[in-house]
């Protein structure tokens, strides 16, 4: 298991009011993403526990793009990765943002 941590400045803060959201599952080639609203609005942290070693540079590119493209400010994001491909990671992160934005019912 490899652990990676990122603390990034976010231009836009996450929408909605939900305290947390979770998407995906831990399985081979898949990942679980937990998003919690717990930081100042301009900060996003991402902690990754991954089964695949040696992909730090790709993770760095994926999470930086994510924070630049999506409204991720204020979020503490925890990822449990089962060796997902970067396209799956990017999709799950995008889904997580949409889920935490959704109106509470």
């Amino acid at each position, binding site marked *: 298991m490899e652990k990676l941590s990122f603390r990034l400045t976010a231009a836009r803060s996450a929408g909605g009011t939900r305290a947390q959201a979770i998407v995906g599952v831990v399985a081979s080639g898949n990942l679980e993403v937990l998003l919690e609203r717990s930081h100042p609005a301009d900060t996003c942290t991402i902690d990754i526990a991954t089964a695949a070693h040696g992909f730090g540079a790709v993770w760095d590119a994926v999470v930086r793009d994510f924070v630049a493209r999506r409204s991720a400010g204020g979020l503490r994001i925890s990822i449990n990765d089962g060796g997902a*491909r970067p*396209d*799956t990671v990017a*999709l799950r992160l995008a889904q997580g943002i949409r889920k935490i934005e959704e109106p509470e019912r």
Partner: protein
Amino acid sequence: MSDWGMQKAALGERLAAGRQHAKGKVVPIPSLPAFLKAVIRSGDRVCLEGDNQKQADILAAALANLEPQDVHDLHMVQSGVVLPSHLDIFEKGIARRLDFSYSGPQSARIARMLFGRKIELGAVHTYLELFARYFIDLTPNVALIAAVSADKDGNLYTGPNTEDTPTVVEATSYKNGLVVAQVTEIVDKVPRVDIPGDLVHFVVEAGRPFYVEPLFTRDPAAITETQILTAMLAIKGIYAPYGVRRLNHGIGFNTAAIELLLPTYGEKLGLKGKVCTHFALNPHPTLIPAIEAGWIDQIHCFGSEVGMENYVAARSDIFFTGPDGSLRSNRAFCQTAGLYACDMFIGSTLQIDLEGHSSTVTTSRIAGFGGAPNMGSDPRGRRHPSEPWLKAGAEADPDSNAALRRGRKLVVQIGETFGERSAPLFVERLDALDLAQELELDLAPVMVYSDDVTHIVTEEGIANLLMCRSKDEREQAIRGVAGYTDIGRARDAKLVEQLRQRGVIRRPEDLGIDPLDADRRLLAARSIKDLMLASGGLYRPPSRFRNW
């Protein structure tokens, strides 16, 4: 004085030699080895019917069992190299030279044999191109073909998998070549005459059906969310704005996902009747939900698909069927239809380079092309207008006189940025170039050339190459949808953003696509069983696709 009847005389000799082992036109199975030895000459050009799907397997095995001291140096001209026996013929030294189109299941072995110089390669063709050469410089001396049934006069019924047979027989028989057919059974009267008996010299009763490869069955259970997202991008970003009604789909999971999203996502976008009404396509099981929902007007088929026979027969409003009720397929006609009468080809590939050339050849596998380079090319002989063709032409060349401007066929390459075993879709240099060098080929086996491809779709977005105005823009447009591959990460982020502002690159968020919709629940069928149920039980999936 010249003798102008030499070919007829040679055919007469073969017929006389063959009749020694036949009763009328019928060759009994035990006599088959002696018969083939009697009618085939060393150095003959032989078409052993290996189609995309249908295989003359009994005749292939018998040919491979000949002895190279009796028959050698054959030149095989066949579209599909599919069965192990097709290559055994080369391994044993019965055949030497090969001209073909497709080698899917044998792609690894054919690569080894080419490298080992066991096969002298003529060329890898597209189907229509090889068929064309049957009539010009690759006319067979002998054709060994497959059909469902024959009568004693040699009239053949090919059933739903007619495929290449009419083309092969036309080229061989009318040019004094010998035609031998394997059939499942000999009957008093065939259900319909697909090949007239005058053109068929001998028939062999195999006693069992010929082998058919179920090539077009994609299990919806294996479709990923990334593929669903990519399919949504294609539908909303290409099918809808161009209004693509006449098209061909590749055989991969990406296009299977598109087929399964038509009745759900396509319906939501109000596209029914506006896109995907006419296809040049095999009867894909994943198209059943769209057909049942009334999306499709008409489909012409290259071949059939295992298990789809009863469904197709019950949907004659959609498919081309004969008086016997079953599908009439014809690969040459359908390839022509795909080339000239379709406005779009969309399919997957294995490698795309920075110019946009794409290839399915890797250093260890030579899968051939099949029909993709034909369908995936812009036909310069086209003259009839249509909305998507004109719109694409205008995007490519906005400043020219519209009445003199050629339209453009939409040629779309679709795939995830990382493919099987995480191999990147985008590469600096195609493996096809290394292969060409190693085998000393004049041409690298490129499936779709850069100047034919109009769009590349990945989960990251759509690159519209028609709107690129320089080599540099084109390269950055490709890098801009290449995701986290090395090619994608080496993009010029500023230029990519400019291309996005101009609409050359469009991302899911630019098209209003919600990532939460990229969910398997959006598929109109999520399993083979769902497809069977959607067909009202008419689709009978092969046992290997059944898990219930």
